[in-house]
């Protein structure tokens, strides 16, 4: 009887250990949501928590006279007026042309909200934090400030941008 109990105890003990091992395996690595987009044939990403909405560009973006060059204009988003900016110049990229794949990502960070025109949205991914590498040391100081890291997506390098830093620099 004792032997049986001991055996069942041993089995239970094994089951519990297995369960603990499984729990350890099941603990998910910390992940970050990224919105991957393209600009001038390169891939970039914003932190997904900072992107509130992705919109098809309306037929008409209302130009605002006297606004800085990076401001494409304003759009009506369900009755709210949002700015639309181009970050190409900021990233030293050639100007983009609007195509059927163009999208406006509405981003919010540090109390600033704006649409950002991108050439296309490629994917929205949950990426393990360990898969993100620090920014390339070869980036110039200005860009490095606005880049939080890099990762590989579809064999290409993705530069992860800090929306808050970009908004901060544009607002100066």
């Amino acid at each position: 009887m004792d032997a049986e109990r001991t055996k069942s105890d041993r089995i239970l003990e094994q089951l519990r250990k297995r369960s603990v091992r499984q729990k350890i395996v099941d603990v998910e690595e910390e992940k970050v949501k990224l919105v991957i987009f393209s600009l001038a044939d390169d891939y970039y990403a914003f932190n997904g928590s900072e992107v509130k909405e992705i919109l098809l560009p309306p037929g008409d973006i209302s130009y605002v006279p006297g606004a800085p060059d990076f401001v494409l204009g304003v759009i009506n988003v369900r009755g709210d007026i949002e700015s639309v900016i181009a970050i190409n110049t900021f990233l030293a990229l050639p100007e983009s042309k609007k195509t059927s794949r163009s999208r406006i990502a509405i981003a919010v960070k540090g109390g600033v909200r704006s649409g950002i025109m991108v050439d296309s949205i490629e994917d929205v991914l949950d990426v393990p934090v360990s898969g993100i590498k620090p920014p390339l040391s070869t980036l110039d100081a200005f860009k490095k400030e606005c880049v939080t890291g890099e990762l590989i997506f579809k064999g290409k390098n993705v530069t992860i941008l800090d929306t808050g830093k970009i908004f901060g620099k544009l607002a100066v």
Partner: protein
Amino acid sequence: MEGGGCSVCQDELTLLVFTVGGVRMAVDTAQIDGMAHPEDVQIQGRETRGFHEIISFRGPVCYKAPWVLQVKDEIMPYGVMIDQPEEIFPVNLEALQPLPHLIGAGGGSKAIWGAMVRADGTILLLVDLYKLPKCFNS
């Protein structure tokens, strides 16, 4: 400087809608004495500038149906040339919105101070004539 009493205390503004360079804008009619043809303003000797000369546009601007807004100013009344005045209508202050942060904070003109979405979904930019850069001889 503000004409017609305390406009902030009122619930609505009366806006004059016009276009310059394809951009639809509106001004508070309390800031203007009236409108006149450019030739008539020249005769009156009131100094006048084209809107695009005061606030920069990206492309060239041509005036198809130019009119001059005669700006109320006790010291030196002046004129601002606009294109295609369209309509005058009252608007409740509730319908007006400030411009998005990056437009103003990034060095945009303070004279374009707000906007409103019209019933057809189009956007109307609001211009404060008293905040136009001072480019008139005093």
